[in-house]
């Protein structure tokens, strides 16, 4: 079925109504502009921060922390997931330990992390690492373990061993599950970053929000929240794009 312009418009109708309603209520003066800034004032402050280049710096700082944490945590989770998925011995040695650490809510470690790493960059990145590690570990592990054993047997029949077996059968078989892990981890990544950026800092979206609170700039607080939401959406879209490309053999991703 071909989508008409009206079909594409449908999802945006309710958000638009809400936004217009909000603007009307704010400008009518029924509620205090300081507590509930109008959409327009949010847009204006967004514009000002963009012009000054400040917003870009903050976004890049946050993206950098999120990205670095994701790469380090993702790599650790991926490596242990693969290792424990393939080797029962590695699984018996490490899985219980990993599961014990996983059950500690990583955000509860915040005070301890500040004591260990100070209030610099490393404490924020560390929290993100801790947050994204486990979803990727668990899903990679299950992905490898749940590869159709019939396919593995077939591969062995055709003399695939070691790296070839991994590259041709195990990894592609685990990939859908790994992507579930990545998308889940991306959610955790932003959540962790928001909390981590309440640790005093000079730059980042979290700084923007905390700083605005000091001066009761509610429009900037709301702007920060919207940016977090947009970045989260962007990360999810990127993951989906990767999924579509790498899993196009799978009907459910076509």
């Amino acid at each position, binding site marked *: 079925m071909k989508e008409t312009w009206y079909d594409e418009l449908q999802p945006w109708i309710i958000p638009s109504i809400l936004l217009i309603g909000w603007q009307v209520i704010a400008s009518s003066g029924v509620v205090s502009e300081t507590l509930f800034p109008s959409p327009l004032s949010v847009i204006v402050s967004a514009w000002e921060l963009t012009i000054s280049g400040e917003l870009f710096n903050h976004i890049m700082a946050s993206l950098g922390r999120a990205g670095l944490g994701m790469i380090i945590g993702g790599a650790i989770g991926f490596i242990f997931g693969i290792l424990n998925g393939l080797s029962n011995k590695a699984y018996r040695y490490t899985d219980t330990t990993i599961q014990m650490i996983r059950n500690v809510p990583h955000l509860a470690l915040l005070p301890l992390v500040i004591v260990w790493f100070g209030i610099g960059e490393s404490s924020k990145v560390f929290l993100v690492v801790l947050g994204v590690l486990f979803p990727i570990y668990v899903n990679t592990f299950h992905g490898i373990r749940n590869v159709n054993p019939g396919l593995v047997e077939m591969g062995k*029949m*055709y*003399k695939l061993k070691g790296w070839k077996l991994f590259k041709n059968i195990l990894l592609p078989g685990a990939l859908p599950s790994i992507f579930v892990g990545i998308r889940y981890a991306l959610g955790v990544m932003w959540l962790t970053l928001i909390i981590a950026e309440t640790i005093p800092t000079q730059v980042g979206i979290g700084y923007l929000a905390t700083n605005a609170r000091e001066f009761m700039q509610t429009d900037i607080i709301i702007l920060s929240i919207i940016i977090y939401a947009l970045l989260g959406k962007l990360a999810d879209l990127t993951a989906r794009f990767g999924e579509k490309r790498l899993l196009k*053999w799978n009907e459910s991703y076509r």
Partner: protein
Amino acid sequence: MYFKINEVDKLASEVITENDDVKQLSPHAVQIDLLHASKSFGKNKVLKEIQLSIEKGQFIAVIGKSGSGKSTLLRIIAGLDKLSEGELLYNHSPLDESTVNITMMYQDSRLLPWKKVIDNVSLGLEGKEAEKAERVLEAVGLIDFKDEWPSTLSGGQQQRVALARALIHEPSLLLLDEPLSALDAFTRLEMQNLIETIWSNLGFTTLLVTHDVREAVRLADRIILIEDGNIGLDITIANPRPRQLSDPKLALLEEEILQRIMNGEMKSVSEKSVSL
């Protein structure tokens, strides 16, 4: 135990007629010998002292009810399981993967869904070897589908790709584990013809496990019935190929074998009801 075997044997020898075609024999074709071969899973003895010799280039069908041990026999010959006792010889010696090439077709095609058809066929091969994939796909009539995902193919087409994948390795031994049982009747007939033609041209040794007696009678040089871990029946069919299923002698043979299998079952059922 061997009741009625004489009748079946007699019938089989009637079916045997002069066959003038000299069948091509693959230079790689392998002879297989099982000597006092037993396999147990725990206390459960699945194969009991099997003695079986399969000649080079022979098309042998193994039939039997579920749980009779026929699949275990196939897995052992495939090298996927090890014998508990006895010996398994390929060309009079233990398995040497450099000279004996075993490939297999399963009940499900076991194609890798993340590889295009042609890459499924050339799985594990590189360079010159992999280039043969197109020719093999042509042989099974699927060259037009070489760049498709396996999931877009019908069940019969998927099994053809699996057959191509088995053939590209120039097998000494092709193992067929009920590869046609999930196909519809027409596709099954088509596939039987295809397998027979390719086997006649290439002359590798073939072992087909099936519960379809008609399929066995239609394709095999020799039929082995596995019952309770023993060889209950071993008959040779030398009818000329391609065989017509309408051939009354073949139909009779099929009927006899079926009777033979089912009688065993009815007997055990009635024994049980008596003991109740």
